[in-house]
């Protein structure tokens, strides 16, 4: 048997999984990537049109599309990664026949591909918006990367836990889908925490995504300096499902593969 480092083999398996994923999702035509940009762009356009009819100015700056983008793209990072990772096992079921391909491999591969694609999409959208529109924007990449990093970790974490739970309970999969919908409304995407009444602010604070979207906004609006953000809280919130998910996965790996 050829002597080969585990890392080299791991790398090959991940590469194979990522290539396979890219071929099926974005493969035949560039259409896949175009859609990856159009989908969030469409949501942003719709939000901007609706809100500019209701209000004169967004909560920050003068431009609706940019304001929403700063909130939505962070949220989208979380949502998309969470969704992709939670279906890693079901989407790659056939490939898990190969002993060299483990459940963790499929999760890592999906996560990496999703992060790369989302970075591309986010870059394209912001580049377009900032070129077309003019606003009092001063980009601070530290906040942008922090926001993206936290969103990605939270998405990975929830995704890992769900990848186990979804295999066990299709009911949970449906329930989770339903619970997730209002999440969009309470994550600070189209408002800032400061806009809300005190009592609501207290509640919204508990949603880690509210922190994530606010951090993203700090990266664009120099005048926005929230004092309530807690990165340790977001990290703690993200670590719990991740650890539970990994532990469950170890315990139930046998069952998950057999499904």
């Amino acid at each position, binding site marked *: *048997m*050829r002597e*080969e480092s585990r890392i*080299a*083999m791991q790398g*090959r*398996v991940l*590469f*194979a999984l990522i*290539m*396979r994923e890219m*071929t*099926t999702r974005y493969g035949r035509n560039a259409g896949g990537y175009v859609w990856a940009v159009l989908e969030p762009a469409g949501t942003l356009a719709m939000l901007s049109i609706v809100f500019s009819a209701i209000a004169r100015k967004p909560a920050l700056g003068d431009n609706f599309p940019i304001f929403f983008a700063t909130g939505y793209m962070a949220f989208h990072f979380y949502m998309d990664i969470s969704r992709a990772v939670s279906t890693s096992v079901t989407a*790659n079921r*056939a*490939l*898990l*026949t*190969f*002993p*060299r*391909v483990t459940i963790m491999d499929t999760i890592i591969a999906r996560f990496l591909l999703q992060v790369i694609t989302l970075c591309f999409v986010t870059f394209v959208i912001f580049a377009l918006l900032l070129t077309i529109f003019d606003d009092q924007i001063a980009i601070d990449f530290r906040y942008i990367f922090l926001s993206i990093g936290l969103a990605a970790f939270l998405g990975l974490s929830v995704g890992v836990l769900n990848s186990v739970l979804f295999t066990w309970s299709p009911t949970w999969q449906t329930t989770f889908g339903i619970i997730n919908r209002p999440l969009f409304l309470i994550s600070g995407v189209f408002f800032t925490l400061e806009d809300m009444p005190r009592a609501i602010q207290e509640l919204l604070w508990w949603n880690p995504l509210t922190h994530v979207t606010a951090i993203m906004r700090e990266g664009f609006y120099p005048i926005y300096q929230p004092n309530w953000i807690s990165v340790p809280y977001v990290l703690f919130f993200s670590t719990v499902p991740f650890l539970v998910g990994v532990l469950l996965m170890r315990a139930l*790996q*046998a069952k998950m*593969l*057999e499904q």
Partner: protein
Amino acid sequence: MEDVTLTLPRGRSVGLLGRNGAGKSTLLRMIGGSVLPDKGRIVRGAKISWPLGFGGGFHGSLTGAQNVRFIARIYGIDTDDLVARVEDFSELGAFMHMPVNTYSSGMKARLAFGVSMAIDFDVYLVDEITSVGDAAFKQKARAAFRAKAGTADVIMVSHSVGTIREYCQSGVVLENGAISYFHDVEEALEHHQRNMRQ
């Protein structure tokens, strides 16, 4: 299976025997590594294939060639070379470049067989090489297996006594959660038939 200890030596092909539901296919998959034991461990000293004969392991929306490339990557083999050799062996022609979900079950089996033969494993796991392709292809398959006989072993599940006799020198009998290894396949077959009669 409970409290099982089993050592399979290299250089001998083994047939797994047992009644339906005894756990032959599961044992095969455990040897391959796609099913994990609830307790205990499995130590492998050779390059083992994945269980052949399932037609599983192929992603439906990818073409035959794309699936082969995936397998080549995870086993660290040159992709173009493997695709060429599989194309040659499985005789799928234009279908190599069509999605696998357009294949008949016979074609999937031929592709699976073609890939596994094209990679040099030390041990081949085979689950019922039933009717894979037409007579000419079966001949080709038999010849390929024979060519490998010198360097590779086979661990096989089959309901055909003839097939077991043809390929295996040793046998393992599964019955009621217990496993018995027989160095001589004839003894294994005899034991198995006795179990079936009870």
